[in-house]
């Protein structure tokens, strides 16, 4: 019994030692020794003596529900961070600055207003052309910012898919190892810790669903595409689609891009295909309708040579790509159609050109309002992503604290326990001494009686 008890006590201490040594190890789950009490026996003198306890193994303290919540929040946090990161790259282009679309648009109408006071001034005409060119450049820059961000996200998608494949391979390799350890009746805590960490890393990339089976953990994406089944990992593929975007295919070649949610991959895809695409569409619409409206106003007047006004801007025939391709169609200041009657001194048509600023475009908004709406959306999307990121970070922190208190190692707690143990041991040592002295007296009484 003493040997069993010593072994058990030694096992407990080993666990405590291991817990303390791993107090700062990320993902380490506190272990406890599993002890089984043996049935007592009756020895000489009718004394019932316990047979002590046996150390049957070690078990990690786990909270599956908290683990699942942490995985879920990690996915949400990574997704929000991916969106926030992209929006932070985009936002400066759409804020009021010296070169943004709104400022350049105001500058163009201001130059048209200046020209109306002296319609024959070549300097004023040149200023209108320069302002028009700056506005076109602002449209080009904004479009370029959005498309380059999409390109960055394309690379991110490829990188994420590669990481998913690496992680699922490692997770699948651990499944049979864990099953083998469990088959021997042991806990497999260290291997399970490794697998949990890998699943958590995977959750940062995409939404995953974890199911415990006899063959270990089965992992699927949020839409049910299998990633790990037993010891087998099912790799995803990244490929460039006809739209120029990187698409994600499952092992059978089916396109699962739009169904991927959560995590860095889900956040990147959502930002690329929904947020940025939406902004780009609005920007293209504004550029196309604005250019068309200015061209229409120009066409209603006459240039300095008395000819009908030519297009002021070159605008794409389709809305898509308009912001990227818009440019000034005229380079000669004399071609600005300021005149309403063909005479060189007339400024009648400048009123029509100026009116574009306050007239509703086909979208129903004035150019200024349409741009302000775009700026508001970018700001709102950035704020939302920021709020989501902050909220999920706080939530994750709280969940990790909960998990840590349930499964983590508290040095203070271990230390306090040990001190209490020491005090109890001192009291027990005094009992041992007392029993020794009692033993002498008792043996003496037997001897005296036998004489």
């Amino acid at each position, binding site marked *: 019994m*003493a040997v069993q008890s010593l072994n058990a*006590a030694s096992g407990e201490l080993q666990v405590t030692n291991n817990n*303390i040594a791993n107090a700062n190890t990320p993902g380490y789950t506190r272990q406890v020794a599993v*002890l089984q009490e043996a049935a007592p026996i009756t020895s000489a003198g009718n004394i019932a003596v316990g047979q002590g306890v046996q150390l049957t193994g070690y078990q990690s303290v786990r909270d599956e529900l908290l683990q699942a919540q942490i995985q879920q929040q990690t996915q949400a946090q990574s997704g929000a961070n991916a969106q926030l990161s992209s929006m932070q790259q985009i936002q400066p282009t759409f804020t009021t600055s010296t070169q943004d679309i709104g400022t350049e648009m105001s500058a163009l109408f201001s130059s048209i207003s200046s020209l109306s006071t002296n319609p024959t001034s070549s300097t004023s005409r040149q200023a209108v052309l320069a302002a028009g060119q700056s506005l076109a450049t602002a449209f080009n820059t904004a479009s370029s910012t959005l498309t380059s961000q999409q390109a960055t996200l394309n690379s991110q998608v490829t990188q994420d898919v590669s990481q998913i494949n690496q992680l699922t391979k490692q997770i699948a390799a651990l499944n049979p190892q864990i099953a083998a350890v469990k088959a021997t009746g042991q806990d497999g805590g260290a291997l399970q810790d490794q697998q949990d960490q890998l699943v958590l890393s995977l959750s940062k990339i995409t939404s995953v669903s974890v199911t415990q089976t006899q063959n270990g953990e089965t992992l699927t994406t949020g839409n049910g595409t299998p990633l790990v089944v037993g010891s087998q990992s099912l790799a995803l593929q990244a490929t460039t689609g006809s739209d120029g975007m990187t698409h994600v295919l499952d092992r059978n070649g089916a396109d699962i891009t739009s169904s991927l949610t959560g995590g860095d991959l889900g956040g990147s895809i959502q930002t690329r295909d929904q947020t940025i695409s939406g902004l780009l569409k609005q920007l293209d619409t504004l550029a196309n309708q604005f250019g068309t409206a200015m061209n229409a106003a120009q066409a209603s007047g006459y240039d300095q040579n008395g000819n009908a006004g030519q297009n002021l801007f070159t605008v794409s025939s389709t809305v898509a790509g308009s912001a990227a391709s818009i440019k000034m169609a005229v380079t000669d200041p004399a071609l600005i159609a300021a005149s309403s009657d063909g005479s060189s001194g007339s400024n009648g048509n400048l009123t029509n050109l100026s009116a574009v600023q306050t007239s509703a475009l086909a979208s129903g908004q004035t150019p200024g309002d349409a741009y302000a709406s775009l700026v508001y959306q970018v700001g709102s999307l950035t704020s939302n992503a920021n709020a989501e990121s902050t909220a999920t970070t706080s939530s994750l922190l709280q969940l990790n604290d909960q998990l840590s208190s349930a499964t983590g190692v508290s040095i203070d707690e271990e230390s306090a326990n040990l001190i209490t*143990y020491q005090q109890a041991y001192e*009291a027990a040592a005094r009992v041992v001494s007392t029993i020794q002295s009692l*033993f002498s007296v008792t043996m003496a*009484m037997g001897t005296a*009686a036998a004489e």
Partner: protein
Amino acid sequence: MNNATLQSRDQIAASYLQQMQALAFEISVAMDAIAANALPKFQESVARQEMLCAGLASMANTVSNGFRALDHPLPSSADAEIQRKIRAASGAIRELNLQYAALLKHSGKSIALLALLCRSHQGQFQEARGSRLKHQTWSCEM
């Protein structure tokens, strides 16, 4: 020695034996508690051991003097039986007490070391060198 004295002495001896058995049981409970890391159970058991030891110490001299007072004729068969039981119980407790002392010594030393480690733990974790080794080591002076 009259019958009443003998009866009283026998009763004390029986009570003494009973308390010895209780003490032996408590020692085994305490050893199990140590092994099971059940601190409250261990503390309760030690408290009961202290009470039993105090009771036994006060009875020991009475019982011993009672046996010494026995001269001729030889003690009755009942006396002999209870003495045999007391001696057997005493031997069992002696053996158990040795195991208990060994367990306390062994486990106490380990706990003292761990308590020292815990006290010295504060910001002393260090990450192992090398790109592949990411486990942390913890060192302290003893």
